[in-house]
């Protein structure tokens, strides 16, 4: 078996590793800027797609299909993002006679239409947040808001991961929010339609992992708490959720299974819910992909979701039994993004000059970079994911603290400092969070350099050196320069 991995970065490396562990071969694709990324080097073959712009590379269906054909692949796994939830791509893959390692295109299409998904959930008895059909105009949004009251949410019909989503606090904000949500929907999902939902106050974002085979069997693999978000994108996830009892887990799981069964779901998927402080849950949407945060479920449930997704796509029956899928211990994932948490998560592309990853008991790092890797501006800014497991939540958080104290990424700003701050927060330590937690948490912070750090920096500046982010055009060292340097007793490695 040979699988084309139609993605990049950490998830591409995760999938290359899954293929190798299944005894298969994996083919990587890469744009101009990604030719030496770890996932490319780990693959058995690599195909250059062209320029770095996503539409010329990772979003370019003809190029991806040609790459699969040329390298003799029998299957395509899309990862997350890019074309993972694009039914046209799924169809094109199937039409080319290849195995599509995701849910059937008609299921992606059905669940990708958020309003149709809501209808489906309501039909099988799963509660949904009050909301609308796709709106014809901003006036319809205004009418809905007047009916249920502000704040409301505007969401792109094809959206996901916070893209094409806007909170509208008052009527004055409505027109611009509508235009922006629609523009993002058009830009990212080629669909400008927008729908509206009542905003639930201080909800938790809790989602349920499911696995389904082609013979109608669906199991759930517990929930994930994903309330720590910035701009509606998750930053830290954990399982079990501190707010979910075994009884609530059972009800959430059954709701998720009911929705997926009704949709004819196959492979791995995630059903997202809002959970109120009172323990009421509402169906939000189904993510028809392997989620970024799948590893925490893997370590707490002892299941390899990536391998199961591939095997289920090949038609294997699901042999896992629901009663065997019980959580053991607690896991937390931190997403290391190249973003500056002190500047409202401004993107921070550049070069990873210094990288030292944590290791040891209970620590897993799914990384897409190595020391010297460029962090291009064109793509999702995820560098790595730190996953820790502990016997209890307290154990996992202590371990997280230890692992974060070992994790060094310099050259770009990252979200790593944010996680260190979070661990000092009593509300977070107690699990008292909601989707609006992070903005409030950050608003109360002011960071100043510690005097000892100022002293060290001043000493280094006086000595006048340090690793500087390299000039990207000077990446490729030539042999002559290397030979010249080689006699020196230096240990260095520079991944171009």
């Amino acid at each position, binding site marked *: 078996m040979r699988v084309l991995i139609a993605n990049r970065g950490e998830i591409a490396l995760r999938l290359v590793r899954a293929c190798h562990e299944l005894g298969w071969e994996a083919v990587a694709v890469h744009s101009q800027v990604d030719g030496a990324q770890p996932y490319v080097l780990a693959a058995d073959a690599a195909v250059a797609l062209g320029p770095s712009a996503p539409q010329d590379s990772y979003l370019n269906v003809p190029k991806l299909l040609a790459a699969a054909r040329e390298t003799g692949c029998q299957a395509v796994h899309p990862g997350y993002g890019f074309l993972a939830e694009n039914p046209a791509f799924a169809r094109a893959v199937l039409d080319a006679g290849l195995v599509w390692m995701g849910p059937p295109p008609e299921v992606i299409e059905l669940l990708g239409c958020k309003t149709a998904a809501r209808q489906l959930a309501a039909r099988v008895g799963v509660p949904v947040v009050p909301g609308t059909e796709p709106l014809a105009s901003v006036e319809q949004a205004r009418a809905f808001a007047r009916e249920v009251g502000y704040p409301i949410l505007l969401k792109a019909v094809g959206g996901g991961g916070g893209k094409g989503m806007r909170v509208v606090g008052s009527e004055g904000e409505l027109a611009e929010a509508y235009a922006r949500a629609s523009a993002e929907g058009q830009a990212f999902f080629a669909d400008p339609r927008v729908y509206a939902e009542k905003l639930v106050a201080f909800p938790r974002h809790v989602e349920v992992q499911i696995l389904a085979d082609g013979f109608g069997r669906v199991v759930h693999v517990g929930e994930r708490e994903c309330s720590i978000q910035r701009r509606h994108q998750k930053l830290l996830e954990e399982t079990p959720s501190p707010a979910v009892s075994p009884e609530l887990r059972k009800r959430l799981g059954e709701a998720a299974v009911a929705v997926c069964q009704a949709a004819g779901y196959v492979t791995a998927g995630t059903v997202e819910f809002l959970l109120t402080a009172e323990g009421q849950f509402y169906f939000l949407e189904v993510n028809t992909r392997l989620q970024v945060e799948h590893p925490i479920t893997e370590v707490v449930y002892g299941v390899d979701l990536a391998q199961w997704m591939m095997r289920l796509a090949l038609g294997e029956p699901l042999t896992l039994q629901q009663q065997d899928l019980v959580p053991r211990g607690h896991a937390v994932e931190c997403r290391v993004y190249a973003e500056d948490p002190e500047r409202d998560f401004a993107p921070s592309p550049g070069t990873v000059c210094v990288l030292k990853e944590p290791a040891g008991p209970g620590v897993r790092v799914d990384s897409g970079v190595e020391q010297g890797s460029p962090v291009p501006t064109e793509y*999702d*800014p995820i560098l790595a994911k730190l996953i820790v497991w502990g016997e209890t939540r307290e154990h996992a958080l202590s371990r997280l603290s230890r692992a974060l104290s070992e994790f*060094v990424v310099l050259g770009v700003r990252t979200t790593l400092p944010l996680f260190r701050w979070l661990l000092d927060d009593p509300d977070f330590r107690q699990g008292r969070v909601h989707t609006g937690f992070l903005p409030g948490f950050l608003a109360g912070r002011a960071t100043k*350099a510690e005097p000892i750090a*100022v002293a*060290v920096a001043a000493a280094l500046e006086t*000595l006048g050196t340090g*690793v*500087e982010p390299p000039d990207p055009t000077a990446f490729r060292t030539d042999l002559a320069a290397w030979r010249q340097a080689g006699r020196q007793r230096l240990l260095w490695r520079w991944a171009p």
Partner: protein
Amino acid sequence: MIRCFRLADPQQPVKVRVVSGNVEVEVGDQRFHFQLELSGPGGGFIHVEGKKLPLFCARLRPGVWQLFFGGQEHTVVLEDPLRASPRPARGHDGQEELVAPIPGRVVQVLVPAGAEVAPGTPVVVLEAMKMQNLIATQVAGRVREVRVAPGATVEAG
């Protein structure tokens, strides 16, 4: 070797004296003594109060240091008092120039040259790492010149 800097935030004088790895630094009215044992431009060790701390460092720009030691990351911005302090982003004739706060691709320019703007008026949509960001002006006045077009790529600054 003796050098003086100015800490950017909060504004404080910083005075450094280095004699073969022995470092004395004054930061405002605080004094620090330590030894630096550097094993490369990427780091080395700080010897302070009998403890050997691994140090990792990257110099993002002259005077701008990203450090890691003691389990924590630190960012320090030092200014050289001998050089002119960084010019506020200012065009000719006292006019304000809008400077991109982040690198990215211009999606849309929301105001034409000649338009009147108030502080906070969004003027450009900048896309970086898959997020569209609304960039607003911080002053009132009239847009004199638009130097970017949709599709253009800009660096921060």
